[in-house]
């Protein structure tokens, strides 16, 4: 009788997992089929090829404003800005593209080049543990990490269920669960920091931006940031953002000097 139930349960579990994965797959594939949008994209590409970067930017931006996004779109927009001489905005768009295709070699190369053209060095945010987690899952997208976490979670549950039926396996299963949970925590920290970065991260787009002690034009300048520097937004006032540098220095920056990711 138990075997029958076990078979039934594993079938149920299989169905759950299978439907879950097909859902994830569907979600990942979840592209819109908008021919008008495609047309706009190709027009922008054509403008880029003719070195008309302003027009290319205009078309790409139009596409983004219509509520659509894709890694290639951000990548091409970044290229257009870079060619136009706005490396800061190029970095913003490369960062956006990185959310989807962090391992794309073209993107990596251009991203690094844009950084080196501004003489910038990337400094990661967060504490040591977050840096470790980030390093471990550097090439993972947000969706990948979400699925990864979910899969680990399902595995943990399966391990728990197995330990219910096969008490003798506990010695094997417990270390497995421990490993899975450690992995889960690391992935969760990385996911959290990625989401935070994409929600609160911003790039300086002015050539040089003064960071002040107070959100006032007349306030004393605390330090200066140059184009392409990454900051974290802590607080938003009317025309000012309170920002934090990777090294922890905090100050106020004029809204127009920044672009949110």
């Amino acid at each position: 009788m138990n075997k029958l139930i076990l078979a039934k349960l594993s079938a149920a579990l299989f169905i759950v997992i299978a439907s879950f994965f097909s859902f994830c797959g569907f979600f990942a594939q979840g592209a819109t089929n908008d021919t008008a949008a495609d047309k706009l994209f190709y027009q922008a590409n054509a403008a880029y090829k003719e070195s008309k970067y302003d027009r290319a930017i205009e078309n790409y931006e139009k596409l983004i404003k219509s509520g659509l996004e894709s890694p290639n779109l951000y990548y091409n927009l970044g290229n257009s800005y870079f060619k136009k001489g706005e490396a800061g905005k190029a970095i913003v768009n490369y960062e956006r593209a990185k959310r989807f295709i962090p391992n794309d070699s073209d993107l990596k190369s251009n991203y690094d080049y844009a950084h080196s053209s501004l003489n910038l060095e990337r400094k990661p945010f967060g504490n040591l543990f977050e840096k470790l987690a980030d390093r471990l899952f550097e090439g993972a997208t947000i969706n990948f990490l979400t699925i990864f976490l979910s899969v680990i979670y399902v595995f943990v549950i399966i391990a728990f269920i197995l330990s219910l039926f096969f008490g003798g396996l506990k010695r094997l299963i417990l270390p497995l669960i421990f490993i899975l949970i450690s992995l889960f925590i690391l992935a969760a920290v990385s996911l959290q920091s990625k989401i935070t970065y994409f929600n609160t991260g911003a790039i300086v787009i002015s050539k040089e931006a003064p960071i002040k002690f107070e959100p006032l034009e007349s306030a004393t300048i605390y330090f200066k940031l140059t184009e392409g520097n990454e900051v974290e937004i802590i607080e938003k006032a009317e025309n000012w953002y309170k920002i934090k540098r990777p090294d922890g220095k905090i100050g106020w920056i004029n809204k127009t000097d920044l672009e949110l990711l």
Partner: protein
Amino acid sequence: MVKEKELAYSVERIAYRKNSLLLSAIRYSLNAISYSLVFSILFFTSTCFAKDINFEATVDRDKVGLGQSLQINHTFNGTQNMPALELPAIEGFQARYLGPSTRMSIINGRIESSITHIYTLLPIKVGIFKIGPFKFEHNGDTYNSNSISVEVIETAEQSENQPSQEAQPEVKDLNERIFLTMQVKKNKVYLNEVTPVTIKLFVNKLGVRDIQYPQFSHDGLSVGAFEQPKQYQEIVNGISYDVIEFDTRIFGLRQGELRLGEANLQCNLIVKKQIRRQVPSFFDNFFDSDVFDNFLGGYQTYPLNLKSTDIPITILPLPEENKPEGFSGAVGLFDFEAAVTPLEVKVGDPITLKATVRGQGNFNTVTLPVITSGNDFKVYEAQVKQEKTALADGNQTTARWPTAKAFEQVLIPLNAAIKEIPAINFNFFNTQTGKYETITSGAFPIRIVKSEKEEELKIIESKQPVNASFQANGQWLGFHQPKPKEDKLGRDIIYIKDAPGQLRKKGEYLYKNKLFIFFQIIPLLLYLLIAVFQARNRRIKTDIKYARQLLAPKKARSGIRQAKNYLDKGNIQEFYDVLFKTLQEYLGDKFHLPSKGITISVIDEHLRNKNVPEEILISLRDIFRDCDMVRYAASQLREENTRNSLRKIEEIIDYLQRHKV
């Protein structure tokens, strides 16, 4: 009784012993862990120290006459914080502690420090004696020194230029008992010519400690670092002095009449306290021994600043006459050699030119041969390495200054027409002859094979003109440092992507998707379900009462179904049989009673205690009565009655299931 008590006592003792055994085992293992930890830490640190600090014993001479003194130094390299060792009795000698001397130097950012404790040994008999090895314990670490053998000879045997101490004239003036001298080997030197400077500290029977490196002004001169000071004895005007010699080298930076010095040296003089000198007496001499002074702690230190005389020095300019082209200021006596590897390469492959300048002189102005190649070679910045070995004049002293300079330069041939790397001329000014000299090495014939991939060459070809070039006649232009050249390769961003990729709604992420989050609950629910089910199954297996109660309604339902079947067939007898059996089993299971023994009286009493309403009890009684009537009295009941019985039994079961009875 007594025996019982004894027994109980011994049992207790065994239990106690068991406990204590366990405890002691735990304690033992904990101790073992902590001891091994402490031991390993100690071992580690001690090996560390033993590695870092080295203890060395040296004597100023290994042959000494009776009545003469001998100096023994205990040097600890790698620390300055080491107290003096209380010398054990050394056979054949009387020992006396003079004082410590510390030394610290920083070379290329590496700090070297040492402390030397100086003792004098007075031989008391003739023979060959072994001094040491000395063993010294400090802060839990043990240091071992080498041993030294010293020969003590009769005073008569000593050489004439070493008069015995008794023969020495008494020196009264402090300036004659301790003084500083400075000497320059040559005081007429060429620009950039290196000449040694020796500063000597002379000490006659005085305790001196905290001796610092001497300092001197050197306007227009460049001064090297001091070598490790030498210590020896020297006789001046018949007086034996302990000498500390500091060596360095200087060279002139500009021509003219310059002055070197005066040299300043700071040290502390150790002087006996003069307390008991107020009443001079016969005993004074007796008490005026260091043993008593030491015993009474009678030493005081006085800071002393010693000065030497200054030295005029003339820096001569290098003659303009016969000055070779490409002379870059190398002054001294040098040898030069150069070699090229490999001798056969493809166009675009590197060739290494190795050149070495050896000799004595000022290596600061020896610069590397730079290859200047029109369009034939691409020249990279050379790597320079200086060697410091024993001085060339035969002294075994390890020099602080270089004795050779090696250059390694990479050349890349740019076309296959090149047949050789032209000869290299090394020019220097020989300070001994006062003439310019040129050493030529090469030319080096090479074979260049045409590269298969010549287009690759375009990448490395510099757009800027090469900063050096061969002269038309193929001679090196000379020695000068090339500026670092960086290949400015074309770099740009990679081209845009053709396809838009997967255009999707902005900001849509899986973690925000409600359906996805909902999916996450399912495995957890499944787990809970399985866990509950598993727990229930286990209880059914182990808890009979629970199992009976749990399965009772199920069994009852199937019984009723069976009964209904009989009723439909009109088989009243069977119907009541089954009904009765079902009721009996149900009640038995429900209240965990033997089913066969269930009668109305048993169940009536059981249910009454549990506050079951009267109508249920009446129904029960009715059913039992009906069953009995049909089963035993064979009375025929009407179908209406049978349906009634069926309804009642369903009601009863329903009630008992619903209410916790």
